[in-house]
């Protein structure tokens, strides 16, 4: 008996026959397959819209490994400048290159100052505009604030007055 396009059994034996037929039909595999283009185009469009919304053209800085940046409620846009990083393990990096151990650098800052001066002189060679005196400072949130402030003092004496502290915006 057929009801609304599907088979319906009137008694137990007919039910058994219908079930057997269905089971046989499940065993047959389709040779080819069709790609559901409508769903794929839908998914692509949604992905494109989402990614376009999250797209940002502002400059980005690399966060060094071993640094957990603190969160901030009032962040500004990051500016393109050299990046100085103070890691949790106590190492100091300038543009991802190891300068030395922070404690030693704070006692004897000549190594860092030489590298900062090189950046300044390279800038003067390639640009006609005055040096912007900006630097990005990354530090782990567990690092002591006195260590960060001592490094800031060194940067100020090296004529890097505008210090951008890297944070994670909420």
């Amino acid at each position, binding site marked *: 008996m057929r009801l609304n396009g599907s088979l319906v059994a009137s008694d137990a034996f007919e039910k058994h026959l219908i079930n057997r037929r269905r089971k046989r039909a499940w065993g047959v595999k389709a040779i080819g397959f069709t790609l559901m283009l409508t769903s794929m185009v839908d998914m692509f469009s949604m992905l494109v819209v989402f990614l376009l919304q999250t797209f940002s053209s502002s400059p980005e800085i690399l966060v060094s490994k071993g640094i957990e940046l603190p969160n901030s409620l009032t962040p500004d846009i990051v500016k393109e400048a050299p990046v100085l990083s103070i890691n949790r393990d106590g190492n100091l990096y300038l543009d991802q290159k190891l300068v030395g151990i922070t404690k030693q650098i704070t006692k004897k800052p000549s190594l860092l100052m030489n590298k900062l001066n090189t950046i300044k002189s390279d800038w003067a060679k390639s640009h006609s505009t005055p040096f912007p005196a900006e630097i990005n400072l990354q530090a782990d949130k567990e690092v002591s604030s006195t260590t960060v402030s001592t490094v800031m003092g060194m940067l100020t004496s090296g004529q890097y007055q505008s210090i951008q502290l890297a944070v994670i*915006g909420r």
Partner: protein
Amino acid sequence: MRKKTGLGGKKDLNADLNLTPFIDLLSTMVCFLLITAVWIDIGSVEIKQSHGTQASESKKVTYDLDVVFKNPTSLRLNLKRKGRTVKSFNVKSENFESTMSQMNSIVQNKVLKYKNKAIEIATATITPRSSVNYGNLISTLDVLRSNKIINIGVLSAKGQ
């Protein structure tokens, strides 16, 4: 067979969209956007270490604010005018978060409304301590910046 009506042939109302270039374009865009996507929102907090800012050069009556940390849960706010402390406020609480909220209310209600007059803070200076970590320092900067105190410096303290 299509039946002719009138002089011109009847146009088919259903248009077929050529899907191949459409999918090509979408996949290229998805690849480009995925490669250039930035998942962590990194911002910056500006610190001006130099003395004598544009704000202090203005002719308005301005004050300076010193934030002196004793420990993460205790600090002192010194309101200064022409280098002399005119008023001090002690902030102390059980934990750092409540200290920051207390500091925020003092800055809003007592510092920026000193003697019931709206005043302007030209520069703020933070004196850190070794017991105060960098995350706490950023939270303090947040409190000041949220109260429109922009020219902030950090004293390079030794030891403590």
